[in-house]
């Protein structure tokens, strides 16, 4: 337990000390929120979709959690290069605890980031459909954070250097974002896109946020929570296994 706690705490300390990173990672969601949010609003409304900010805000929250989570998982590559990983790898504690501690820490950071973006959406004019439903969004935000931190961790265990990192970002993380329905509705999509969206775990996360925050959805909360929990458990399992196999 103390292993998990101290490594969780480490992630939080690192986050709170890198103001630049914290603020920098708000740039992207802000851009999406204001540029896309206001840019597409007229078209979206003309097409009969209603208020685009109401639609896109949960997507942007999901996006910021996705990126923060993946990046904190993938930090292991840096730690391998700059050496700290060795220190934890020779410690007489189960590697699964190490992996859990840092993954929970990374997920907490991503959750906080998501929460900050949630607050910012108000500035863009977003108003939750029902204040009663808002607390229900938080567990989903944490679940999304945990899922993608575990994914980042697992991938980082397979990569030896920075080259692989760019492949991973461009060919996995960006598609995960764009196919998730964060920016467009999942209704009436061409079949191949619809299939890909339904294979993307972020789709279920964004769907859950949209149901709880904006009152509209596609899959429904029971489906969302089932898929998210199962995939999170799977990624945590695979991540732990890969982490336990790391050689430095």
């Amino acid at each position, binding site marked *: 337990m*103390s292993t998990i706690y101290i490594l969780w705490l*480490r992630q939080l300390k690192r986050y709170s000390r890198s103001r630049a990173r914290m603020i920098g990672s708000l740039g992207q969601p802000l851009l999406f929120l204001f540029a896309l949010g206001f840019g597409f609003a007229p078209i979206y409304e003309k097409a009969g979709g209603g208020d685009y900010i109401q639609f896109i805000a949960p997507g942007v929250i999901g996006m910021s959690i996705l990126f923060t989570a993946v990046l904190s998982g993938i930090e292991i590559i840096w730690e391998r290069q700059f*050496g*700290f990983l*060795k220190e934890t790898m*020779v*410690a007489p504690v189960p590697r699964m605890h190490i992996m859990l501690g840092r993954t929970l820490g990374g997920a907490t950071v991503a959750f906080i980031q998501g929460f900050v973006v949630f607050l910012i959406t108000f500035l863009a004019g977003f108003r939750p459909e029902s204040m009663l439903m808002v607390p229900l969004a938080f567990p989903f935000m944490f679940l999304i954070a945990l899922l993608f931190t575990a994914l980042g961790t697992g991938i980082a265990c397979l990569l030896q*250097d920075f080259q692989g990192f760019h492949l991973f970002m461009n060919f996995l993380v960006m598609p995960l974002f764009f196919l998730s329905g964060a920016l467009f509705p999942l209704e009436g999509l061409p079949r191949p896109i619809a299939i890909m969206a339904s294979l993307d775990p972020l789709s279920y996360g964004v769907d859950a946020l949209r149901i709880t925050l904006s009152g509209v959805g596609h899959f429904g909360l029971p489906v969302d929570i089932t898929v998210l929990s199962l995939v999170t458990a799977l990624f945590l399992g695979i991540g732990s296994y890969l982490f336990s196999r790391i050689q430095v």
Partner: protein
Amino acid sequence: MQPSTPPIIDVRDLTKQFGSLTAVDHVSFSVAPGEIFAFLGPNGAGKTTTIKMLTTLLRPTSGEIRINGHDPLHEQDAVRRSFGIVFQDPSLDDELTAWENLELHGVLYGVPKALRRKRMDELLTIVGLTDRKDDLVRVFSGGMRRRLEIARGLLHHPLILFLDEPTLGLDPQTRNHLWSYVTDLNAKEGITVFLTTHYMEEADRIAQRIAVIDHGKIIALDSSEALKQKTGTQTLEEAFLSLTGSAIRDEDAGAIDQLRMHSKLWRKR
């Protein structure tokens, strides 16, 4: 070495291959409890690779290892509880303070809080970092980092202390400090010390027995005196030359080490 006590480190035919390169080639040796044992060899000889296999970081290609009676492949936790290590390459968290780095280590090794705090204070004094303990490691110089790593390696009072080129990049005064602390600890607490170095005079002065290693093979293993006697030479330097047929190139070491560090950071593996 007393043959009656079972060795605390026992290695038989240890081999590690990276592709076609044999980094460690059928190495066998044992270290008695309380001994100070050195691996002496040039860069690339296979010293670090051997230490990584002894400390559960790398899986051997073949061979047998026992650390305090345990097998690093199958009893990792028991092995990991037996040793402390100062790695050749940096291994601190730059975004934490010196104190936090020690605290994290103490918690990982299950050192109870009161004892942990007491030792952290002691060790910080010994390595001369007490007044810098709340600074982020990021702002530390190379020497300060090294000293902190040494303090950290000692925090849980291990049975065995692995020191992989611990004095690399330290000034002579800190070097002396370090070695007197280590030999002290060895005498007082009976900690076994396994060190690697490519500095002749260090091996000569500190180690009770020296394994001369080159191209992954142990060429000779004995006390410094016996090595000189066997080769009929006056200094360990000459003995080394006579054993390996080449100088260790101490004076180039600094530059080579820097190049290695550099290429390591960017190497595709």
